[in-house]
C-alpha cells in the first residue's frame, strides 16, 4: 500500500514542484525528472512480485506488468527528453507534466476504485493536453482537438462508471462482476470501452493521434499517445472485458468490428501520408485494432495476444517515434518528400528503426510476430466456436499486416534509403537519445525470440488464465497466414513500385545504380492506390475529414447551433413569446391531471 502511494505521489508531487520552479532556472527540473522517474521505475519493479487488494488500490497480475511498463517508458522518455527538449521553452512545465503523467498513469492502472480511476484518468487527459500544447503555438489546435476527444470520452466514462455502480452496487473494481445482458449493462460496457478506445486510439476516436504525432514534440507522442495511453487504455479495456464484465456475443462482435476497421482503415490512411510522424501516428492507431481484435475474440489466447501486442506495440512504437524524433532533430523536417538516404549518417537510428519496423509488420522473429500470431490463434479459435465471420476478421488482420509491411518498406525507403533533397551530411544523435532506442529495439528482439520464456511466462499468462497453446488450434494455419501476409505486403510494395515507375515519368538520373531510388517519395509512391476508383473516393472523403468523428460532430453541431443562434435574434418579442409559450406548456402539464 505504502509503495503504491509513494510511487504515485512521488512523481505527482515532484511534478507539481516543477511547476513552481522559476522560469530561468535550468537543470533543476531535468535532474528532478531523471531521479524521480528512475525511483519510480524501481518502485514499479519492486511492485512486480506483489499482490495487493484494498478499497482504493489493486495490484494483480494484470496491472503489475503494465505498471512496470509505465515505469520503464517513463524513465526512458525522460532520458530521451534531456537532449531532445534541450533549448525549448517551457521545459519546467514539460517535466512537470511528464512526471504527473507518470504518477497518474500508475495511479490509473493501480486503482481499484472506479472514482479514483476516473480522477487519474482525467488528470492524464489534462497533462496530455498541456504536453501537446507545449509543442508550440501551432499545436494549440491539436491540443484542443486531443483534449476534446479524450476529455469527452472521460465524461462518457463517468456515465459508464455510474451505470456500473448501479449495476454492480459498488465502485470497487475487484468486486464487480456484471454480465452483459441488458441494455444498461451494454451501456455501461460501451461507455467504459469508449474511454479505453479514446485513450488507446481505436477508431472512431483515433483522430487525435495522427494530429498529435505531427504537431506535438516527438518525446510527448512517443510517451503518451504511442505508449502510456495505449498501455493504460488497453489495460482498461482488458480489465473491463475480462474481469469486470462478462461479455456477451454482441459486445465481442462490436470489439471485433472496431478492431478490424481500425486495423485496415488506419493503415490505409498511413499509406498516403506525407509526414513521417503523422504516418507513424496512423500506424499507432492501426496497431490498436489488433489489440481490440484480440480482446474481442473473447478467447483466452486472443486476449493474451491482445495484451501482449499492447506491450509489444508500446515498445516498437515508442522506438519508432523516438527514431523519427532523432531524424527530425537532425534534419529539422519530418516531411517524407524532403527526407532520404539517412542510413549512412545515422546507422544506429536506422538499425533500431528497421528492427522496430519489422516488428510492427509482424515479421518473425520479432515480438510483433508473436503477439499477432496469438491474436490470429484467437480468431481461429473464434471460428472453431462457430463464429461465421472469423474469416473476415482474419483477412482484415492479415491485410492490415501486409499493408503495414508495405508501408514501412516505403517509409524506410523514403527516409533512410533513397536520396535526400539537398543531401548534406548529418550526424548521428547523441547517446542520450539513442540509448533508449537501442534498449527498445533490444526488447523487440528479446520479446520476439524469447517470447514464451520471458514476457508471456512472466507477464501475460498470469494475467489471462486458461491459455493453452496446444490442442485448440492449428499453428500451421496461423503461421501460413502470417507468411502469406508478409508476401502480400511485399507484393503490394512491388506492385506500387512498378506502377509508380510506369506512370510517373520521373527524370531518370543516369549513373545511379538503383532506378527505384530516383526521388521516390511517399506521396508518389502510393499515388496509384490513392488514384484507384473505389479507394479514391474514400481517400478524398478522408482528406475532407469526413471520417474524423471530431470534425463530423463539429459540422453537425454547427448546423444546430446556427439554427439556435438564428432563433436568438435579439428580438425582444421573440423572447417574450418563449416565456409565454413556456408558461402555457407548464400550465398544460400541471393542470393535465387535475381538471
Amino acid at each position: 500500500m505504502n509503495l503504491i502511494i509513494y510511487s504515485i505521489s512521488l512523481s505527482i508531487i515532484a511534478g507539481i514542484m516543477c511547476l513552481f520552479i522559476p522560469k530561468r532556472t535550468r537543470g533543476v527540473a531535468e535532474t528532478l525528472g531523471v531521479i524521480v522517474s528512475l525511483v519510480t521505475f524501481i518502485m514499479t519493479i519492486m511492485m512486480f512480485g506483489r499482490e495487493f487488494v484494498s478499497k482504493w488500490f489493486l495490484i494483480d497480475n494484470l496491472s503489475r506488468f503494465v505498471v512496470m511498463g509505465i515505469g520503464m517508458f517513463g524513465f526512458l522518455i525522460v532520458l530521451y527528453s534531456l537532449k531532445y527538449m534541450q533549448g525549448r521553452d517551457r521545459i519546467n512545465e514539460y517535466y512537470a507534466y511528464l512526471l504527473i503523467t507518470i504518477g497518474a498513469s500508475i495511479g490509473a492502472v493501480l486503482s481499484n476504485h472506479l472514482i479514483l480511476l476516473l480522477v487519474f484518468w482525467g488528470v492524464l487527459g489534462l497533462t496530455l493536453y498541456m504536453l501537446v500544447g507545449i509543442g508550440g503555438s501551432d499545436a494549440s489546435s491539436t491540443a484542443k482537438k486531443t483534449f476534446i476527444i479524450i476529455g469527452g470520452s472521460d465524461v462518457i466514462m463517468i456515465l459508464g462508471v455510474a451505470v456500473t455502480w448501479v449495476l454492480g452496487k459498488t465502485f470497487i473494481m475487484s468486486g464487480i462482476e456484471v454480465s452483459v445482458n441488458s441494455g444498461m449493462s451494454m451501456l455501461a460496457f460501451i461507455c467504459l470501452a469508449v474511454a479505453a478506445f479514446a485513450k488507446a486510439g481505436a477508431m472512431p476516436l483515433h483522430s487525435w493521434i495522427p494530429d498529435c504525432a505531427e504537431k506535438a514534440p516527438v518525446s510527448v507522442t512517443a510517451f503518451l499517445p504511442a505508449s502510456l495511453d495505449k498501455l493504460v487504455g488497453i489495460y482498461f479495456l482488458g480489465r473491463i472485458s475480462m474481469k469486470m464484465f462478462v461479455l456477451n456475443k454482441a459486445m465481442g462482435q462490436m470489439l471485433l468490428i472496431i478492431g478490424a476497421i481500425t486495423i485496415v482503415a488506419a493503415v490505409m490512411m498511413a499509406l498516403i501520408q506525407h509526414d513521417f510522424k503523422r504516418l507513424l501516428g496512423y500506424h499507432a492507431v492501426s496497431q490498436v485494432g489488433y489489440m481490440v481484435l484480440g480482446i474481442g475474440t473473447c478467447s483466452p489466447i486472443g486476449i493474451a495476444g491482445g495484451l501482449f501486442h499492447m506491450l509489444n506495440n508500446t515498445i516498437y512504437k515508442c522506438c519508432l517515434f523516438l527514431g523519427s524524433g532523432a531524424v527530425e532533430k537532425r534534419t529539422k523536417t519530418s516531411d517524407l518528400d524532403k527526407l532520404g538516404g539517412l542510413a549512412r549518417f545515422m546507422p544506429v537510428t536506422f538499425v533500431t528503426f528497421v528492427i522496430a519496423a519489422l516488428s510492427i509488420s509482424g515479421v518473425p522473429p520479432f515480438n510483433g510476430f508473436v503477439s499477432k500470431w496469438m491474436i490470429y490463434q484467437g480468431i481461429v479459435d473464434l471460428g472453431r466456436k462457430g463464429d461465421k465471420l472469423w474469416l473476415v476478421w482474419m483477412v482484415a488482420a492479415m491485410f492490415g499486416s501486409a499493408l503495414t509491411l508495405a508501408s514501412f518498406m516505403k517509409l524506410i525507403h523514403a527516409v533512410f534509403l533513397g536520396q535526400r533533397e539537398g543531401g548534406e551530411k548529418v550526424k548521428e544523435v547523441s547517446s542520450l537519445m539513442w540509448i533508449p532506442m537501442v534498449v527498445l529495439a533490444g526488447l523487440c528482439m528479446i520479446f520476439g525470440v524469447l517470447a514464451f520464456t520471458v514476457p508471456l511466462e512472466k507477464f501475460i499468462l498470469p494475467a489471462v488464465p486458461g491459455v493453452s497453446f496446444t490442442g485448440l488450434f492449428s499453428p500451421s494455419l496461423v503461421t501460413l497466414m502470417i507468411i502469406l501476409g508478409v508476401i502480400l505486403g511485399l507484393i503490394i510494395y512491388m506492385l506500387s513500385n512498378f506502377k509508380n515507375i510506369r506512370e510517373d515519368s520521373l527524370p531518370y538520373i543516369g549513373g545511379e545504380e538503383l532506378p527505384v531510388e530516383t526521388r521516390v517519395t511517399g506521396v508518389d509512391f502510393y499515388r496509384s492506390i490513392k488514384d484507384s476508383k473505389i479507394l479514391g473516393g474514400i481517400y478524398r472523403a478522408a482528406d475532407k475529414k469526413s471520417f474524423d468523428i471530431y470534425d463530423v460532430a463539429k459540422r453537425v453541431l454547427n448546423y444546430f447551433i446556427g439554427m439556435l443562434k438564428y432563433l436568438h435574434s435579439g428580438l425582444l418579442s421573440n423572447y417574450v413569446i418563449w416565456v409565454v409559450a413556456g408558461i402555457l406548456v407548464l400550465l398544460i402539464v400541471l393542470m393535465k391531471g387535475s381538471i
Partner: protein
Amino acid sequence: MIYILCLIFFMVGLYGVLVKKNIIKIVLGLIIMEYAVNLFLIMLGYREGGVAPIISEGDSITEFIKHSVDPLPQALVLTSIVIGLGVIALMVAICIRLYEKYGTFDITEMRRLKG
C-alpha cells in the same frame, strides 16, 4: 367575474409586450400588466374580508393575532403599486436613452445583441 376581467387586462398587457415593436408600447403593455395584477390583489383583499389587518385602536395585540389574517397582502398591494411606479420610471428613462442612442422607437432595430 372580476378575476376574469383582471385576467383579460393582464392578457392585453402581455399581448402588448408580445407583439408590439415600439418600445413605448411594450412599456405600456407592462404597465397594464401591473395594473391588472394590482387590481387583482386589491380585489383579493376585498374578498378575503376578515379582521382589518392593519392594527386599529381597541384591540390588544394578542387578540389581534388571534383574529387577524396575515397582514402582508395589504402591504403587498402597496408595494406592488410603488414597485410598478419605480419600474415604469426606470423603463421610460431607459427608453429615452435608447431613443437618443438608436434614434428609433423600433425594438427590432435594437439588435446589437443577438446570437
